[in-house]
C-alpha cells in the first residue's frame, strides 16, 4: 500500500470538508445570490464587493483574520466560547467556516448570474398563475437556475479541495483533525518523501478530474433544442 494511514485520513477529511462546504455554500449562497440579482437596495454594491472579496485576497490574509476573529480574544471567538462551543481555530469546524468564506464568491456568482439571466419574467408568469412568491421561487426560479447551481457546486467543491493557505492558517495541519490532502502533500515534500507525495498528488489529479467530469456531464441544460 503506497498510501500511509495518515494519507488516507487526509483524503477522507478532504472529501468530508469539500462535501460539507459545498452543501453549506449552496444553502447560504442561493439566498444571497437571489437578493443580489433582484434588489435595488443601496447595499447591493457593498454586499456584492464583500462577497467577492475572497476572490482577490491572498488566502493567508483571509486565514489570518479568521484566526484572529475566531481566537479566544476575537469577536467571534468570544461568541463561540460563550455559546459553549469552545474556540474554532485548529478544529474541523473552524476549517469548515474558513472554507465556506473562502469559496463564497465561487458559489454566489454563478447562481447570481443564472438568476439574472432568467430575468423577472418567469416569476411574473408564475404570479399570474396564482403562485405565491416563495412557491414561485422553488417551483420556477430555482429549477431554471439549475445550471448555475451545478456550476456553483463544482467550483465550491474543487476550490475547497484545492485550498491550502487558509487551511494552513486556521487548521494548523493537525493529523486526523485538520490535515487535508494539500497540507499532507506539503508535509511529504518537506520531509523529502517524494514517492508518497507523488501517489497523493497523482491521486488528487485523478480524483479532481473525475469529479469535474461527472459534474459537467450532469450539467446538461434542461430543455435543449432538439433539431
Amino acid at each position, binding site marked *: 500500500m503506497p498510501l500511509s494511514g495518515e494519507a488516507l485520513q487526509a483524503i477522507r477529511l478532504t472529501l468530508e470538508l469539500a462535501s460539507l462546504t459545498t452543501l453549506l455554500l449552496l444553502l447560504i449562497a442561493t439566498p444571497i445570490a437571489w437578493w443580489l440579482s433582484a434588489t435595488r437596495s443601496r447595499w447591493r454594491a457593498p454586499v456584492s464587493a464583500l462577497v467577492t472579496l475572497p476572490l482577490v485576497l491572498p488566502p493567508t490574509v483571509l486565514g489570518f483574520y479568521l484566526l484572529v476573529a475566531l481566537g479566544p480574544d476575537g469577536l467571534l471567538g468570544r461568541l463561540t466560547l460563550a455559546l459553549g462551543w469552545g474556540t474554532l481555530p485548529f478544529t474541523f469546524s473552524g476549517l469548515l467556516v474558513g472554507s465556506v468564506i473562502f469559496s463564497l464568491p465561487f458559489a454566489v456568482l454563478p447562481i447570481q448570474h443564472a438568476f439574472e439571466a432568467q430575468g423577472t419574467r418567469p416569476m411574473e408568469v408564475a*404570479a*399570474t398563475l396564482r403562485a405565491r412568491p416563495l412557491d414561485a421561487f422553488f417551483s420556477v426560479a430555482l429549477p431554471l437556475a439549475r445550471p448555475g447551481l451545478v456550476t456553483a457546486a463544482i467550483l465550491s467543491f474543487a476550490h475547497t479541495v484545492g485550498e491550502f493557505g487558509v487551511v494552513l492558517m486556521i487548521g494548523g495541519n493537525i493529523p486526523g483533525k485538520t490535515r487535508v490532502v494539500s497540507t499532507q502533500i506539503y508535509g511529504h515534500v518537506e520531509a523529502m518523501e517524494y514517492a508518497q507525495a507523488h501517489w497523493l498528488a497523482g491521486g488528487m489529479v485523478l480524483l479532481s478530474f473525475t469529479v469535474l467530469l461527472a459534474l459537467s456531464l450532469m450539467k446538461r441544460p434542461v*430543455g435543449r433544442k432538439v433539431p
Partner: protein
Amino acid sequence: MTQDAGCSRIRLEVPRAGFELAVDLALPATGITVLFGASGSGKTTVLRCVAGLERARQGLVQIGAEVWQDDAAGIFLPTWRRPVGYVFQEASLFEHLTVGANTRYGLKRGSSGGSSRGGLPGGSLGASQALDSAISLLGIGKLLDRLPSQLSGGERQRVAIARALATQPRLLLLDEPLAALDHARKQEILPWLERLRDELKTPMLYVTHSADELARLADHLVVLDHGQVKAEGPAAAVLSSIQSPVLAGDDAGALLSGQVAERDPRWHLCRVAFDGGSLWLRDSGLPVGHAVRLRVLARDVSIATGEPQASSIQNHLPCTIESSAPDAHPSQVMVRVSVGASMLLARITARSFESLGLRQGMNAWVMVKSVALLQ
C-alpha cells in the same frame, strides 16, 4: 359612472418617462377589447397594472364585482391573488416543465377565491374540466408530453394561452401575443383567437399595434396615444370615425358585421348581409347563416351620384353622405357615408368631391371594389 353588472372599470394614473399615463376605461363583460396604439403609448403598462405586476400611483381596478385595486380604499391585491390570465408577448413557458406540466401549473394553485364563474363553454367547471376544455379549445392535446423547446413559436403561444385559461381567469390579458411571430405563424394563431372570442365568456383585453389583428379581433376598441385615451367605443364605430382616424393610410377602412345570406355556386360568390345592405364577395365555403365580419378599406370605395350602370364592380349600395375630412395628402378627402345603419369610409380625390358637388345629407351611391372577409 354607473357600473353594469359584469362590466369592468380600470382607472390608472402612472407617471412615465416623458408623459403621464392616465386612463379611465369601462370594459364590456364579454368579448375582446383591443388596446391599440403605437409602441410606447402605454398599452403594456395598462396590462401590467391590471395584473398587479406594476403599481399605478393612483388606481382602481374593478373586474365585475371584484375590486383588485382601489388606492382610495387602500386595496391592492398582489398578482397571485388576482384571478387573471396573462399571455406575454414571447410565450414564456417554463422551460423546465413539459407542456402538460406547464398547463397544470396554475391549476394546482388555482383556488382563485370567490365564486367561480367559469369562462369556458359549459359554464362553471371543475378545475380539471377547465384544463381539458382549454387544451381542446387550443388544440394542444398532442403536445402535452413535449418540452417547450420542442415547440414552434405558434404552438408555444397556444400553450401559453391554454395555460392561462386553465386557471379560469375573470379577465384574460394578452400583450401583443402575435408580435414575436412571423406572418405565417400569425395566420396560424388568429383563427384560435377568433374561436376564443366566439366561444369564451371571459372578457379579454388585447394589446396590439397591428391593424390586421385589430380589425379581425376587436369588439370594443380603446386607442391610446402617449398615455391618453384618444378614442373608445365599439370597434366598428371607432374605426369609421374620420375626425380622429385610428388607422391611417392604406389601413383606413370600416368594419361591418353580418352573416352569409346566400351562396352562388355558379360564380363561386356569396352574399353577406349586414345592417343596411349586402355585399357579394368570393365564396370561402362558409355555410349560410354563418356570422362574419367584413373589412372594407377606404381606398376600395368610390362614390357616384347616380346608380352606376355597366360597371365591373359588383357591389354598389345607396348611401347618404355623413361627413368629410381632409386626408393625409391634400389631393384626397376621406368621406364617411351611411348605408342603412352601417358606416363606410371612402377615400376620393378632392377634385371629384367638388365636381360631384358632394355635401352632407346628400344621397349617393358607393361602389365597393373589394371586401376582406375576416370570419
